[in-house]
Every structure is written in structure tokens, then in C-alpha cells.
């Protein structure tokens, strides 16, 4: 039916019979309107698909309005075609004529939408975009049709391929055509074989899904499909190895960020700080507050709000760290058990304080557009938020190294931790250095909070999820050694991600934990133990 209408339309177009076209289009558009107003999802989806095939000046706004749920039908029955309205803000326009209208909002109900309709909308939008002057849009349109692979798109695709100049877009269109052809039950074996060959070249998971349906049974088509699947599968498996490494690095970079601050406070200073996770949590809340403030007062800066949050989170967590050191930890040096209990209590206080201040529910930290989505490199899916965190943790690591190695503060920190009495007698105010070192470690925890807010829940419980992992990384890497923390975090991340597909998430974690316990038994000082006289004492 759909194809016949199209054929009629094409024929008429060739004869340049403008009034007749208008009439044919009118007749079918009123059918479409009836479908859109129907309470059955099936009818709505079919109507949308037809709208994509029909095209015309009114089709695009209607589909667009439906996607944003701004398309309304009047609920009383009997009128043919049923009146449809597009809402924009407070005003309405008649969907079929494009003229402004003033329907009573109380009599309107939105055109029904579910996943079926949503799929039809995506494919219709693809069809309508095929004639776009922008090659990028045409390419996206081809991909949308590929994803929907509905046979009704074939004639439109044939036309588009014939008129396409850009070779890359033409390849995309051919692939889309091949996928639609496989969905066409009346296609010849020869056509199908050609389509499978085209799709085999495209590769990828979505292609696998489309060819997969043909691989059952006997005959040349099934055989070709199986061959194509085997080829695509091998390719995918090679990529999935690289993908696992990326996942591992990204998990490792999160672990690294969370553990780096602890590598300072626990590794360098020897303070068992159970409230470390809460400092991460406070960094995440600082990100939230900064984001809210930026959105409220400087909306133009919203995309870079997260960058403004970086120094803010460092300052808040770092300042709090100095306060904690001055008011609590300095009285407990050399008493690890008391420190452990006191900081544990402190972590509960900080959690409950956050809960009272911001409420027990999650707060929403949004990701800026440049950190959402993914880029595809061959078969690799690189999610942008993870990539940003990997880069960020690298930068923080470098900055921390530079601070410890190349600044006077770093020199004093190392002096104080290596030999406190000697440093004191050289005129270094060791209590201040202690406070600043603790503040630095806490500030880095705050930076971890900024990163974590992009991938995890921001709730008062956030810190608890990271405290155990952080200690694990620091102990595994070797207490007192930043390089050890780096290697420890990344290798734990990669190990975890390679184990997960085989062992499952729960068992994977257990295996990693047991492996670490066994390792610490063999080498109690971790991967890269700090050597020297200072350690022995």
C-alpha cells in the first residue's frame, strides 16, 4: 500500500501535474492524520512511517513535534481528517495546514508515543533528511534508516543513491539500502547475497544483529550470512580486547584519582584516614554547588562549569583537610588505632552532616555536552566522560609529582616525613608542613570527587564506595610511593575488567581481593616498596 502510493506520486511527479500531486498528497495526509489520532500504537507508528515516505513541507514539522511530544489530537471523534495541532510554547498551529489555531487545551490529548512509535519517528526523520543539502545530515539520515531497516525506505534510498555526489555518503546510503533489502521478504537471492556482501564490509555489532536473523537454515543466503557473521565476529573479538584495555584503564584512572590523595595522607604521612572517602564525597558536592551557582548566575558558562568546580573542590576539601588535621589528627600522631577510630567517627559525622544539609536523596550533577556520548575508532567505543577522566587523572598525577619534586613545599614535605627532628632543627615548621601535606592529600581527594560526580551517584554514601578500593590500591602499590599507586591502580583496573566477562562482577571483585591478599602475604610492602633507613625505623 505504502509503496503503491509512492509509485503513484512518483509517476505524477514525472508528468509534472502539480494540482494532482497536491490532491493525492492531501488524500494520504488525511489518512496519516487519522492514524496519528488513533489510540492504537500500531496505527500511529504506521502513520509516521507513511509520513516519512510521503515527505512534503508539512511532514518534517509534524514528525519533529511528535518527537518532542508537542503533537496533539482533539479527543472528540467524527471529524475527518481529525484535527491535529502542534504546540510551541503556549500557542498552537494546525499541523496539516501550518496556520495558527486556538484550540481549547482541555479538549486536546497528546498523540500516543511508545518505543515502537519512537523507532518509526527515527526512521521517518531519516527519510525526510535524505534530501538535506548538508552531507553530514544525509549521512546521519542513512544511519538512521540503517538502524530502522524498514523495507518501505527502499525507493527513497534508490533515488537518493542515484543523486548522491559525496562518495562517503553514497557508501552509507548503499549500506542502508542493503539493510532494508534484507528486511524485504520479496527480494531475490541475488539481491540478498549482494546486500550481505555490502554489510560484511561495514562490520560492527549492529550489522551482526541484522545479518544474524538470516543465518538459520540452509541455502546460499544462510551460508553467506554465516560467513559474514564469522568474519565480523573475528574482527569484533580483536577489537573487544582493545576495548577491555580501555575499560580497565578507565576504571584504573578512577581508582588512581581516589587513591592519590590517600597515597599522600596514608602513604607519605602514615595517617589512617577513614574519612578519606567523605573528602571525595565533599568534592563531588562542591561540584554540584558550583554547577548550580553557575547555572543560576552565569548560564553562558554552564558548559565549563565543571572546570570551575575543579579549583573549588580542591579548595573546599583541602581546607577541610587542614581543619581536620589541626583540630583532630595532630593530637593522634603515632597512635594508629585511635586515628582509625576517630576518623571513622568523623566520616559518619560528615556523612550525616551532608545528609542534613543536602537531603538523603541523590543530587543531580549533569555532564556537559562535550563529556557525553562516545566516539568510535574502528570497533572501539571510547566514551567521552571516561576519556576525560583518564586525561584528568593523568594531569592530577603529573601536577602532584611536580609539587612533591619541584616546589619548596614538596621538598619540606619530603624532609619532614623522612626525618622529622632533622627537618625541625633545620628550621622547618613541621606542624605547618603536616597540616599542608594533609590538606594537599585532602584537596586531591576533592579533585577525585569532581571526576566521580560525572560517573557515579552524588549522595552522602558516595565516599564509602571508594574508601576500601583506595586503601587497596595504596597498599598494593607500595605505601609511600606515588608510582606504585599509579601502577597499582591501573593494573587492578585492567585485571578487574579482564576478569569480569568470565567471572561476573561479584566473583571478579572477590578474585581480585584474594589475589591482593596473596600478593601482600608474599610482599608485605607492595609492588614498589620504599627502601632506605628512614623506612626501617
Amino acid at each position, binding site marked *: 500500500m505504502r509503496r503503491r502510493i509512492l509509485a503513484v506520486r512518483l509517476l505524477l511527479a514525472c508528468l509534472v501535474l502539480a494540482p494532482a500531486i497536491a490532491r493525492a498528497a492531501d488524500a494520504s495526509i488525511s489518512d496519516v492524520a487519522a492514524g496519528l489520532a488513533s489510540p492504537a500504537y500500531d496505527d500511529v507508528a504506521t502513520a509516521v512511517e507513511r509520513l516519512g515516505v510521503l515527505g512534503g513541507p508539512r511532514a518534517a514539522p509534524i514528525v519533529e513535534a511528535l518527537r518532542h511530544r508537542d503533537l496533539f489530537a482533539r479527543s472528540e471523534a467524527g471529524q475527518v481528517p481529525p484535527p491535529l495541532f502542534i504546540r510551541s510554547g503556549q500557542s498552537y498551529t494546525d499541523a496539516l495546514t501550518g496556520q495558527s489555531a486556538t484550540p481549547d487545551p482541555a479538549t486536546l490529548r497528546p498523540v500516543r508515543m511508545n518505543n515502537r512509535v519512537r523507532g518509526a519517528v527515527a526512521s521517518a526523520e531519516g527519510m525526510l533528511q535524505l534530501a538535506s543539502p548538508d552531507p553530514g545530515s544525509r549521512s546521519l539520515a542513512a544511519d538512521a534508516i540503517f538502524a530502522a531497516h524498514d523495507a518501505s525506505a527502499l525507493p527513497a534510498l534508490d533515488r537518493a543513491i542515484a543523486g548522491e555526489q559525496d562518495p562517503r555518503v553514497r557508501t552509507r546510503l548503499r549500506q542502508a539500502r542493503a539493510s532494508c533489502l534484507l528486511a524485504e521478504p520479496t527480494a531475490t537471492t541475488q539481491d540478498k547475497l549482494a546486500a550481505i556482501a555490502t554489510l560484511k564490509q561495514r562490520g560492527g555489532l549492529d550489522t551482526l544483529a541484522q545479518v544474524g536473523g538470516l543465518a538459520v537454515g540452509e541455502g546460499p543466503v544462510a551460508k553467506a550470512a554465516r560467513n559474514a557473521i564469522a568474519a565480523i565476529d573475528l574482527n*569484533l573479538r580483536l577489537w573487544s580486547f582493545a576495548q577491555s584495555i580501555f575499560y580497565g584503564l578507565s576504571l584504573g584512572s578512577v581508582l588512581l584519582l581516589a587513591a592519590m590523595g590517600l597515597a599522600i595522607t596514608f602513604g607519605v604521612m602514615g595517617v589512617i584516614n577513614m574519612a578519606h572517602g567523605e573528602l571525595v564525597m565533599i568534592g563531588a558536592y562542591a561540584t554540584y554547588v558550583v554547577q548550580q551557582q553557575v547555572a543560576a548566575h552565569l548560564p553562558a558558562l554552564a558548559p565549563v562549569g565543571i572546570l570551575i568546580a575543579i579549583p573549588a573542590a580542591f579548595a573546599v576539601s583541602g581546607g577541610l583537610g587542614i581543619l581536620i588535621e589541626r583540630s583532630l589528627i595532630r593530637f593522634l600522631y603515632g597512635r594508629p588505632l585511635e586515628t582509625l577510630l576517630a576518623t571513622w567517627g568523623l566520616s559518619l559525622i560528615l556523612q550525616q552532616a551532608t545528609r542534613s544539609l543536602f537531603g538523603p536523596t541523590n543530587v543531580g550533577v549533569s555532564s556537559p555536552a562535550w563529556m*557525553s556520548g562516545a566516539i568510535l575508532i574502528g570497533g572501539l567505543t571510547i566514551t567521552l566522560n*571516561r576519556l576525560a577522566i583518564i586525561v584528568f587523572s593523568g594531569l592530577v598525577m603529573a601536577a602532584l609529582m611536580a609539587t612533591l619534586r619541584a616546589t619548596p613545599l614538596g621538598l619540606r614535605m619530603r624532609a619532614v616525613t623522612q626525618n622529622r627532628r632533622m627537618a625541625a632543627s633545620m628550621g622547618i615548621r613541621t606542624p605547618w608542613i603536616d597540616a599542608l601535606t594533609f590538606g594537599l592529600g585532602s584537596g586531591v581527594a576533592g579533585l577525585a570527587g569532581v571526576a566521580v560526580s560525572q560517573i557515579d551517584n552524588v549522595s552522602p554514601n558516595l565516599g564509602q564506595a571508594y574508601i576500601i578500593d583506595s586503601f587497596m590500591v595504596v597498599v598494593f602499590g607500595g605505601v609511600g610511593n606515588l608510582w606504585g599507586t599509579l601502577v597499582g591502580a591501573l593494573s587492578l583496573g585492567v585485571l578487574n575488567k579482564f576478569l569480569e566477562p568470565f567471572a561476573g562482577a561479584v566473583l571478579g571483585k572477590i578474585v581480585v581481593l584474594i589475589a591482593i591478599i596473596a600478593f601482600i602475604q608474599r610482599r608485605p610492602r607492595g609492588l614498589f616498596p620504599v627502601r632506605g633507613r628512614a623506612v626501617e625505623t
Partner: protein
Amino acid sequence: MLSAAALGLASPRRARAAPSGPIRIGILHSLSGTMAISESTLKDVMLMLIAEQNAKGGVLGRKLEPVVVDPASNWPLFAEKARELISVDHVDVTFGCWTSVSRKSVLPVFEELNGILFYPVQYEGQECSRNVFYTGAAPNQQAIPAVDYLMSADGGGAKRFVLAGTDYVYPRTTNQILAAYLATKGVAPGDVMINYTPFGQSDWQNIVAGIKSFGSSGMKTAVVSTINGDANVPFYKELANQGIKSTDIPVMAFSVGEEELAGMNTAPLVGNLAAWNYFESIDTPANKAFIASWHKFTNNPKRVTNDPMEAHYIGFNMWVQAVERAKTTDVDTIINTMVGITQPNLTGSVATMLPNHHLTKPVLIGEIQDDGQFNTVWQTPTPVAGKAWSPYIASTKNLIGDWQKPIECGNYDVVTKTCLGRHA
């Protein structure tokens, strides 16, 4: 100290005998710890319901007095606090618990001390206690209809299923029931992937990639998620980042409601599904009034309402009716009076308390919209009666719960006509 203990032991009878003074209502919801995120809202809704009832003059001419305790998301502490509520505070009824593990923890206490617990959350079934009224959904009121929808033409005609859940009793039992149910529907075992993750899982990269490749076999795939509260945000974020759309692989969630979505940017989630017995977006006068009074009570026009809140609304009003009908708050009398009581729910139908202490509930399937609300895409034509025991599991398929005379048993075998008793 000793005399205080003696008083504590002696006073329950005295307190229950006393016909005057306020009626005390225990509220056993975590106000701190992991579950505070979900449970503190239920404490608030109970306070609101009690305040509203008091404004109407209380019950039997007596005021209602809430007794709020904080079990702090700590399962053994739930049992301690339940004991404290019944034997020290002498509450006449308790509303509480969220996770199944907390309910399992307090169950022996309520049975030993003969208290009443209203449990408002959807759960895995396979339990039927005389002392508990289950006002949330049983599996046949949520999980089974949800899977039916996914397999229907409107739901996309799914043929392959990923059952993803958090690793604890509710998802494990639900997935066991679902796997058995899918097998009866002709879904091959190879087309069902079951995946468990720890509480608070935040790194979903591998698992989402696994779902993506499982969904690339050419057969329509859907995810049935029993992932618990907190872990959902990073899960959905990862789905969006890896470009999995609801039109490709829809996710049907049993634990994601309006409250969970409130802390999320829902634009990438549009079209993903949830199955509940109530949505805030349902347009009925009763629901509008409930939402308005909730906003007024919390003094926050943005606070959302959700399914367990409606369950408490139904449970509380049923208890009030039972007390008014029985003219007493005596536990045994109330338990016997509760069965058969009806209460209009907020979605336009009527909830009836069944002999197995479960409710009749309508099942709604909703799609997430970009404003964090659900758009109802399907619902059962009439309310569904809750079944405590699953007919799809061999060991429980003959069991029913019936606390009316003459059966008076939570796990009665209809074939052998025997009651298995507490230790079955």
C-alpha cells in the same frame, strides 16, 4: 535498671488494655545509611497521613501518635528496633521496612511478639506471614505482566532477555521466577542472560558492552532490571554513553521510580520502561489531592510521589477502617478484620485486602519521559490479585496463603490439603 526492665516486660498488656490515650503507630524506616535515600520519604508520608487523620479527629476518638525510630540501614538493628517498638513503646501497628533483607530480619520479632507490620514495597513473594500485610506488589503484580508486555507487539516483541540485578534476595528470587516463566513461554535458556552486580556498582562499562553484544543476535532483546536504587544512575548513564537506545534494547526496571529519577538527567533515558502499580502522572482526582497535600506537607512543590508511598496510603487507610470497624486496636482482632477491607487506590480502582494478606493492584507499564515522570503505555484492565507463592517454581506451585478460618495458614498445600507450618 532492673525495675525499668521489669516494667518493660509487664507493661504491654496494661498498655493494650487501656482504651484511652493516643493510639501509637510505629514507623520503622531507615533515616540514615544507604537506604535513607528511599526510606526517609516513607517516614514523611506516614507522618503526613497520621497528621491528616488527626485533623479528622483521630480514630475511635483517640489521637494517633507516631513513634519514629531509625534502624540506620542496618539489618540486625531493624530487628532490635522492631522489638523496642512493640515491647517498650507499645505501638499498636508498625509501618516499615524497604529491602527484603530488613523484612526477613524483623519477621521473627513480629511473629514472636504478635505485632502488625505493613510492608509497602514490591517484593519477591514466597512469604506469607500472619503478622505482615504486604501492600506492595507480589511478582505476579509486577514482574510477570512486565515481561508479558515486553513480549507483546506493543512492547517490541522481545525474544531474548537480559535479567540484570543487584546481588541479593529480591533480584535472585525474582529472576528465578522469571527464568522459569520465560521457559514456559518457549524462550530457550540460551536466550536468557542473567547478570548480578554488587550493591552500589558504579563501573558498568563491561556489563553494558556485554548487553550490547548479547542484543546483537538479530532477535529483539530487552533488559529486565532488578538493579537496586543507587546503582541505577551509573547504569543508565553508561547505556546512554554507549549509545544503546530504548528503541534498540529497552530496559524494564522494577526498582526505578519517580524518586530515583529525581536525581538524574532523564533525557537519555526517554522510552525506557518501569512496571509499578502507581505513577505520579496518573490523572485522577484522588491522586491530584494526594500530590497536593504531599507538596503542602513537605513545603516543597518539587517533591515527587511514588509507588511505595501509595502502598502506605492504602495500608494506613485500610488499618484505620479495620480499627473503626472492630472498635479496638487489639492485634488479633485487627488481623482478622483486615481481610476483605476495600480502599480506593490513587489510580482509580479499588484495593481489596486478600486472605493471603496481599492486595489487589492494577499493573501499569510506564515509559520514562524527559521530565522525570512516567507516561503510562499499558495497564491491566482490572486489578490483579497478589499471589504470595509463585506457580512457576516447582516447590511452591501448590501453595497458597489463607489466614481466614478454617485454613488459617500461610503456606497451605492445596493438593495434599496440609499446612506446612512455620518451618517448611
